[in-house]
């Protein structure tokens, strides 16, 4: 099987603490990426369902936004979990990427991918693009630093007028374009991510494999369509 010259070097050492060792291991880190990724999928889906309330009218969306604000400690708990998931996901995937590049120091002169996809090969880039967008998105709609005038929007009931804030935001074509591009990268990320989670968590098998990978791709582009429909309908003047 092998021709031995010098004994292969051990490039990695493990901690005696089982929890640290789990994180140091390849599969351990991947399980953490998968679990945090799954949490982010739930968030992205829930957030979309909330946003789609814009189609039910001003009252509905503002009431929903108001309700979230009223949750107080629950909202903060959710935000803390979400932030931890994002941090863990990013730190672990950057470490995985660095290790993976070290494991392939010399690339082939001719490369002919047989089954990987553009999506699977660009996970780190689509991920980093998404997080750049998220920062801007928070500055715009949550913290309202980029547009302090949004703070003065209120509806008849005195609630923050999220409905009009979103419409004002997306009426600017460049903002809408930027948003659509970010959602495109998110969907690309998820088109590999969905299936990947089932494999990493060891629940993939021959019976469900094809269903999961196709289903995951469909769900990703459904999420894309859902999010992107909002700026499109606003730009077309269907929601005012």
């Amino acid at each position: 099987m092998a021709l031995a010259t010098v004994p292969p070097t051990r490039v990695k050492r493990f901690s005696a603490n089982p929890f640290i060792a789990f994180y140091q291991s390849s599969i351990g880190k991947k399980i953490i990426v998968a679990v945090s990724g799954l949490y982010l999928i739930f968030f992205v889906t829930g957030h979309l369902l909330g946003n789609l309330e814009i189609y039910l009218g001003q009252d509905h969306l503002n009431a929903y936004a108001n309700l979230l604000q009223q949750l107080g400690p629950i909202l903060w708990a959710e935000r803390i979990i979400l932030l931890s998931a994002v941090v863990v996901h990013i730190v672990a995937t950057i470490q995985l990427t660095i290790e993976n590049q070290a494991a392939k120091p010399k690339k082939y002169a001719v490369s002919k991918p047989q089954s990987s996809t553009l999506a699977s090969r660009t996970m780190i880039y689509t991920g980093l693009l998404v997080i750049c967008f998220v920062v801007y998105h928070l500055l715009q709609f949550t913290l309202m630093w980029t547009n302090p005038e949004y703070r003065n929007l209120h509806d008849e009931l005195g609630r923050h007028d999220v409905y009009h804030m979103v419409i004002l935001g997306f009426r600017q074509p460049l903002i809408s374009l930027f948003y659509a591009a970010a959602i495109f990268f998110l969907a690309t990320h998820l088109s590999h991510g969905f299936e990947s989670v089932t494999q990493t968590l060891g629940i993939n098998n021959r019976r469900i494999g094809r269903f999961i990978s196709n289903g995951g791709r469909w769900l990703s582009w459904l999420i894309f369509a859902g999010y992107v429909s909002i700026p499109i309908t606003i730009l077309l003047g269907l929601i005012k």
Partner: protein
Amino acid sequence: MNFKLKIWRQPNQKTAGEFHDYAASNIPAEASFLEMLDIVNEGLAEGNEDPIAFDSDCREGICGMCSLVINGIPHGPGKAKTTCQLYMRRFQDGDTIWIEPFRAAPFPVVKDLVVDRSAFDRIIESGGYITARTGSAPEANSVPIGKPIADLAMEAAACIGCGACVAACPNSSAMLFVGAKVSHLGLLPQGQPERKSRAHNMVRAMDELGFGNCTNHYECEAVCPAEINRTFISRLNREYRKAAVREAVAVTVDE
């Protein structure tokens, strides 16, 4: 048939290598890829040049010794076969063929196209065995194994340890190889005594040796001569997850 070859030449592990051009002339279409290289080497030897070093042994697809990345694909174009089972009739007359060694940090180049794959032996030593006493095999029918389990174990056992999976993987991950070993031994009753520690120990050896992390590209499955299925990686992930939970709740992992 005639071919233009671009072959990686590297005198040893320490010295940098580069591609050299060779012409392969008058090659019979029924020659295997390795026989084509033999013919080229004969020409080199006649001209007192250093022949191209490459690995091979059985030349019938069972030993896992041959390697090579041919036009960007480990074991060359076509499914479910090794380089020794690749025939020149698959190429067009006049083709340019790029021949590179398997590339991965844990598989250093020894010379030209020969790489050191003993890192796989280190992984096997860490858990790819069973502790049955030799010379006292039980009567075959006294250990019943269901047909579906026997078939699945046999499928995993088809891995010939060639390392093409690592060569094909952009991350040099050895998960398909380890997944095949952990599944083949873990599915059978003979492999049960070490089952709890096997995945844990083999994954640790694989990580320590510098193989990369699987990101589910499945390039390995596409080039594997034994057609080891990706779901054996899923099975390995499952075994590892269970072992990690057991370790975390301090149920001893037997060595």
